[in-house]
């Protein structure tokens, strides 16, 4: 019974980080119709910047703030200097469909190489404000640690902030309207180009948080966030790729599910299971659990 509860808690903690990555991917997909594979690179670059600040100042939270800011700047930059230009040139035909996605893959490689040049391939770890040692009850030490609590609380706060932003503010309304119906939004007076860039910035900031949180229990290296991208993407597909709520729920299901496999079946099957889930969802319910065949939902 204890193992069962632990598994759920650890799964929840892991899943909540997937949720951030998944949310970042969904935010960009909704507004731009691009699966942004470069998100892993953007998040990684932001995490390295957060790492530098956190290590020098020995204050994790300061590092996190810088990682968010760097993520937002890089996200906005990718849209403004890269995606806008790309969409201007590739406006129709197969190139318009394929070019942006291929471009994000290229960008991922580029960012990774640049980070490799600057920081090298060494494994690094970020100083944490709370202990990585599990809580103890009596003589038993649990695998669930204060780090997990910190992760869950941080992710909850981020999700609350984002849901307030999207449902209660004019910016949120502009972001949703531009994603659903760019032309109507434009006619209503929304500066849709600018709004889209802000969407990319928010996604980038969220990715930066995800990177910092994963690195809190893992090492940082130029490809340490690849798995996070893959699981974030699978979670987004489970949630239907359109739905922000779906992406979070999908991520929690995936995180808890994979932790169960890890704890009860074995390490070797965890990765395979993730891909099996992806393929099964695409075969059985390609619109995801929260997507609808006819349209999309907030």
């Amino acid at each position: 019974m204890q193992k069962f509860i632990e598994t759920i808690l650890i799964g929840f903690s892991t899943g909540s980080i997937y949720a951030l990555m998944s949310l970042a991917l969904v935010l960009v997909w909704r507004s731009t119709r691009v699966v942004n594979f470069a998100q892993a690179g953007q998040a990684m670059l932001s995490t390295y910047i957060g790492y530098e600040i956190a290590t020098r100042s020995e204050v994790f939270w300061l590092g996190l703030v810088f990682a968010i800011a760097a993520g937002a700047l890089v996200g906005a930059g990718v849209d403004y200097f890269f995606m806008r230009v790309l969409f201007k040139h590739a406006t129709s035909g197969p190139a318009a469909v394929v070019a942006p996605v291929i471009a994000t893959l290229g960008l991922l490689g580029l960012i990774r190489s640049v980070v490799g040049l600057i920081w090298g391939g060494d494994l690094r770890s970020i100083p944490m404000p709370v202990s990585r040692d599990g809580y103890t009850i009596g003589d038993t030490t649990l695998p669930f640690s204060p780090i997990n609590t910190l992760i869950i609380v941080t992710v909850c706060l981020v999700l609350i902030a984002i849901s307030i932003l999207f449902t209660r503010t004019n910016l949120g309304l502009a972001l949703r309207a531009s994603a659903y119906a760019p032309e109507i939004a434009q006619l209503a007076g929304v500066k849709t180009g600018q709004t889209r860039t802000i969407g990319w910035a928010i996604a980038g900031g969220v990715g930066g948080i995800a990177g910092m949180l994963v690195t809190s229990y893992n090492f940082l290296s130029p490809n340490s966030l690849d798995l996070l991208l893959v699981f974030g993407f699978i979670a987004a597909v489970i949630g239907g790729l359109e739905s922000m709520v779906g992406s979070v729920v999908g991520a929690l299901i995936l995180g808890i599910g994979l932790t169960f496999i890890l704890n009860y079946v074995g390490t070797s099957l965890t990765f395979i299971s993730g891909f099996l889930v992806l393929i099964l969802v695409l075969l059985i319910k390609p619109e995801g659990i929260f997507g609808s065949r006819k349209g999309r939902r907030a």
Partner: protein
Amino acid sequence: MSGLIVDRLSVSHGAIEALRDVSFSVEPGQLAAVIGSNGAGKTTLLRTLSGLKDASSGNAEWNGREMLGKKPDVLVRRGISHVSEGKSVIPELTVKENLVLGGIWRANRSDTNAAIAEVVELFPRLGERMGQSADTLSGGERQMLAIGRALVSRPKLLLLDEPSLGLAPLVIEQIFETIDKLRHKLGLTVVLVEQNAMSALEIADIGVIINLGEVVATGKASDLINDPALRAAYLGY
């Protein structure tokens, strides 16, 4: 010179010329009905006037200021509002959110709230459905919402693209009545694009008949209605 002046406006879609040397003017407070069959270029005309499409040559000005080459969000701020074809609401948003969207460019939210209250007074049915998603509205209600959203920006010039499209005859009659009432009450200048020639001309001051991208007749709406040659050739009755 005030009002809307369109002067030798030409617009092309690639190699195809959709509008050629289109000229007409609408005085403040007037309603101009732009009539023509499918593919005549009516929608292109409105999309060019609201900044969605670029003109290839010509001019268009509103109250003495050039309209062409400006983005829709700039023109909205100058009091030009375009309700695009096909019940232009966002079904994923609530009725309230669709209305708030109409005033989203304002820095001051209370102006928008006041404008929404006015719209709800004009369309009480929308007031009863504020929290529902726009998806649940009937066709006629959606058209009211689309017009209501445009009114929240308190426009001076309203560009309406086929508000009767896809609606039942009884509802169409209501929509035209509403448009007529609104423009008198709010002192709006309206460009109404319609295939429904008779109903549109009945509430219009002037008519502009377009065929294959060119203006074939302009004049007082009542004169156009009674011109037997035009009736046979373009008005279809």
